[in-house]
């Protein structure tokens, strides 16, 4: 199974209405109690400048977060949490529910696992397209090899 740190990335590739609809069905009759107040707002992105390795703020991004305690109809209890780059609390709650279901293998975990597989496929398609753009525009300098110009990084001392 995909590691937990990538569940949000995979699941958030799915259409949000599909995610919310499926998780609502899976949790019908369950008790959902927020462990912290679900929130939507902004996160601030810190990045390391690669020249001097100093941190600075690149800018903000929307963020929704949720942390739930779930009790199933047969009394099983689990916690799930999620933060996602979105401004919709409902999506964060659906992701937190998936986190709880899958981490504790609550009823319906196979369905969530399938959703993750589907999301992962969508992510892989996007990554593949990006790589195809690179492959299509890769520069072939081999024709210049005969010129004797030391313009590679391996030749920086020459």
């Amino acid at each position, binding site marked *: 199974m995909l590691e937990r740190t990538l569940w949000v990335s995979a699941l958030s590739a799915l259409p949000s209405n599909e995610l919310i609809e499926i998780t609502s069905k899976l949790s019908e009759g369950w008790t959902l109690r927020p462990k912290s107040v679900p929130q939507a707002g902004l996160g601030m992105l810190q990045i390391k400048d690669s020249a*001097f390795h100093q941190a*600075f703020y690149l800018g903000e991004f929307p963020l929704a977060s949720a942390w739930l305690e779930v009790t199933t109809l047969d009394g099983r209890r689990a916690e799930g949490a999620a933060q996602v*780059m979105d401004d919709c609390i409902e999506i964060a709650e659906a992701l937190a529910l998936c986190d709880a279901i899958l981490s504790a293998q609550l009823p319906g975990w196979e369905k969530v696992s399938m959703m993750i597989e589907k999301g992962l496929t969508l992510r892989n398609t996007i990554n*593949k397209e990006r790589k195809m*753009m690179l492959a*299509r525009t890769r*520069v072939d300098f081999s024709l210049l090899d005969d010129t004797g110009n030391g313009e590679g*990084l391996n030749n920086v001392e020459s």
Partner: protein
Amino acid sequence: MGYVAIKGGAQAIEGTKDVFEFLRTSQNDSHALPLDVGTIENQLRLLHSRVISEGGVYHPTLASLAIKQSQGDTLEAAFALRAYRSTQPRLVETPVLDSKNMRVTRRISSAFKDIPGGQMLGATTDYHLRLLRMELLNESPENFRKVTEILFENSSIDDIPDTFPKVLDALRAEGLLPEVNETTDNKKPFDITREPLVFPVDRSAALATMTRAEQGSLLAIAYSNMRGYGDVHPTIAELRVGYLPVLLPHPITGELTEVGEVEVTECEVVAMYEGDNDNEATFTLGYGACFGNNEVKAISMAILDRALQKGMNEEPANPSEDPEFVLLHIDGIDSMGFCTHYKMPHYVTFQSDMDRLRTTQKKQSKKESQL
């Protein structure tokens, strides 16, 4: 400067909203459809990138909406995004992210042809003829869709890695770049959204100000340096565009978890070397990065970063090296606000100007008549 409260304009002001909307919707074509936000994000992606970068918040949907409602005015659109962000609570800060993890879509170097991982031009107009493509005037939906269907046939991606090494790391390993100062590595960056710039400012404040600056302003000042009011003489070690995974600790496990990704353009320039008898000679560096695909902006920022370092360490020798001059004149929202405020009624101040002019004229004519 003085202002006077005025009455009687409310109806006219309401009317401007209607007329502004009228022009947006009055396309003389019965098949005309409103722009959807996805179309703006994809088909006007570089305009979209500019707004997302100058707005300072990576919200692709709202950036499209801002462009739509401002009818393509980048400054107004960025203003709307900034206004949105000011209504939102700040929930978290990410840990310091490393652009080595970027999922690259374009990567070039003008310093070396053979960079580790290779050069990949990606989506760019750099090598295109700047001629109008008349066939786009009557582009059919079928032809439009066909492009994505056939473009990548027969492309092999087996040897394309997920991430690429940085050119600067290779140069640093060769001893050609200054050592990284690890003591500044853990320093808390300056937050320009929370604190005003009071000079002298930290480099992190300069980088944060430039990353959401207006592209044209940044370019103009960097251009002054390129043309001769400065001596950076940059070489682009690496320019990359790609998607940076945004990581946050999982609330339960604490493990770094991917919550999304942001498109980023990043540029590192190598500039004139420095060194003397006491200090080993190394190249100097400049760094630029911003949201979206904005290459002119990232390059301009890298050049100005280098120029400002000089101005911060020594006396500024030209405007582009002066942190106060550069950082206080590149924000699009600030400068647009100051500029457009001149459209507001200045009736009192102008009345005063006229009174003084008339008095002066009277005095002058009195003097002339006495001669």
